[in-house]
């Protein structure tokens, strides 16, 4: 077969690839997939550039755009999306800030907002929310998700936005409060994208098309079972079991199931790409001075593979 390496984080949001692998969609299209797991998104993006992996899914970050600008990486499709009808990322307030009146995003003015790094998706979400609310936010770079959770729990930052299962776990444990949905502020936000090396995008057309095809089939299965819930309870259970092989594997299934279900967000059908959202994000990165002015949409995206949503 055609050997390819796929980079992944052990997150529910990466399930489309896991499903495609487990259900043999990759194999059916002659792709011999090997997963490479990472602890963080940045090294995964760099690994595409170095040719260590062929395809991966990650948020559009300053690092990814820089690599694209250097002619090393290319976005070829969309994955996770915010959709007003479905479960999406949440805005959180720390217990202390909530008690002091931060009960809705409208009260964010003058508050501090957690993020990993300047140019991360947290940074983007925070600024968009702040823009809509006309609020002035102080961003705190804490580099590690664990550090942000710690800071939020102990009330050292006031707010944060994060994927639903972490949000609901924190909210459920009374360590923080959900005060809004990201989807309300950034409609149709293209959260993650499928990307590959510029070389693959340009010269390995057949392989890339096959990858995207299998990936979309996995996405459809996932959406039907856990997001749209159209496939019935048994299919949902099967899906949870499948995902559990990759995510929270060292936790018992009962504990893991809750997180997996809560973390299920819509993955674009056919890996369609929301071009408007990508352009919005790109111009935001430029306006913040995080990426070079000369970077264009075409440098970053090769939209010849999938349908684009406007």
């Amino acid at each position: 077969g055609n050997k390819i390496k796929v980079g992944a984080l052990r997150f529910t949001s990466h399930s489309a690839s896991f499903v495609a692998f487990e259900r043999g969609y990759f194999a059916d299209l002659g792709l011999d997939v090997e997963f490479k797991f990472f602890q963080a998104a940045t090294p995964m993006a760099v690994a595409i550039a170095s040719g260590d992996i062929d395809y991966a899914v990650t948020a559009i970050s300053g690092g990814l755009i820089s690599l694209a600008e250097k002619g090393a990486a290319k976005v070829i499709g969309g994955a996770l999306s915010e959709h007003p009808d479905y479960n999406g990322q949440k805005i959180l307030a720390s217990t202390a800030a909530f008690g002091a009146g931060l009960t809705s995003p409208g009260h964010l003015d003058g508050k501090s907002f957690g993020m990993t790094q300047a140019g991360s998706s947290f940074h983007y979400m925070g600024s968009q929310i702040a823009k809509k609310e006309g609020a002035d936010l102080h961003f705190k770079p804490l580099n590690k998700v664990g550090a942000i959770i710690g800071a939020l729990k102990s009330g050292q930052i006031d707010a944060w936005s994060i994927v639903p299962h972490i949000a609901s776990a924190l909210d459920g444990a009374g360590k923080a409060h959900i005060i809004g949905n990201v989807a309300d502020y950034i409609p149709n936000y293209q959260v993650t994208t499928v990307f590959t090396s510029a070389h693959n995008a340009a010269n390995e057309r057949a392989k890339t098309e096959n990858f995207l095809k299998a990936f979309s089939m996995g996405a459809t299965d996932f959406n039907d079972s856990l997001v749209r819930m159209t496939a019935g309870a048994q299919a949902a259970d099967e899906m949870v079991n499948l995902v559990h092989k990759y995510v929270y594997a060292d936790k018992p299934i009962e504990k893991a199931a809750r997180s997996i279900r809560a973390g299920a967000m819509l993955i674009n059908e056919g890996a369609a790409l929301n071009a408007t959202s990508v352009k919005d994000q790109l111009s935001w990165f430029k306006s913040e001075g995080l990426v070079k002015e000369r970077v264009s949409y075409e440098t970053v995206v090769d939209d010849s593979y999938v349908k684009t949503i406007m």
Partner: protein
Amino acid sequence: MIRPVPFRGGGFRPKRIRGVGALVFVCLILFAEWGTRAGWISNLTLPRPSDVARTLFDLAASGLLWTHLSLSLARLGIGAFLGAGAGIVVGLMIGLSSVMRSGLIPLVAALFPIPKIALLPLFVIWFGIDETSKYALIAFGTFTPTVVSTYGAVDNVDRSLIRMAQSFGISTKSIIRKIVLPGAMPGILSGLRVSLAIAIILLTAAEMIGAEYGVGAYILEAGSLYDLERLFAGVTILSMLGVALSICLSLIEARVLGWRV
């Protein structure tokens, strides 16, 4: 009137008393257990030691501990071997040659303070995401301290022994092998204590790059989920690894350096 002369000596020769070290650990752990149970140490601040122990035990029972540990030990072993090996060679060269000394000491001084985690993205490009990059990161981190301690050790080799050897017409190669190396050995071994501790520290940084398993990856994952029990379980493993390595070095020293007075 007749009395013994007053005693004024003693002291200033601390000896290790067996058991006190273990006692300190036991006390600290009991204290933490008490605090976390009584509630005046919040569960955000510190996990319960008993929970950490249970986590460790579960990890061992599931067999995952050995997966993590064997992978990490391999990385540590190969990385530290390469780094310390190259460090000893370069340290010897600096200790023996003026040109090397002049050219490399400033370079090493400039490389030493570079934070390895800052270079993570570059390590991916330079060495890929497989084991090579992990070896390289650990090797790079152990290299500079080993160089510094090795050339220090070579500088301290008794020059009168070298002059003696020259006066007997012994070749430079033999002098290096038979006098410089054994003479520098005590310094090199004590330098390795620090280098190997640094190698353990860097294990976590190395396993940030594309590592599924490994003690460092385990700690990182626990950290990103703010799972304190697992975080401390991982840290405990690293600590014990450090103590074990230090004991190994002591045994090697006792064997190799028996000639010391």
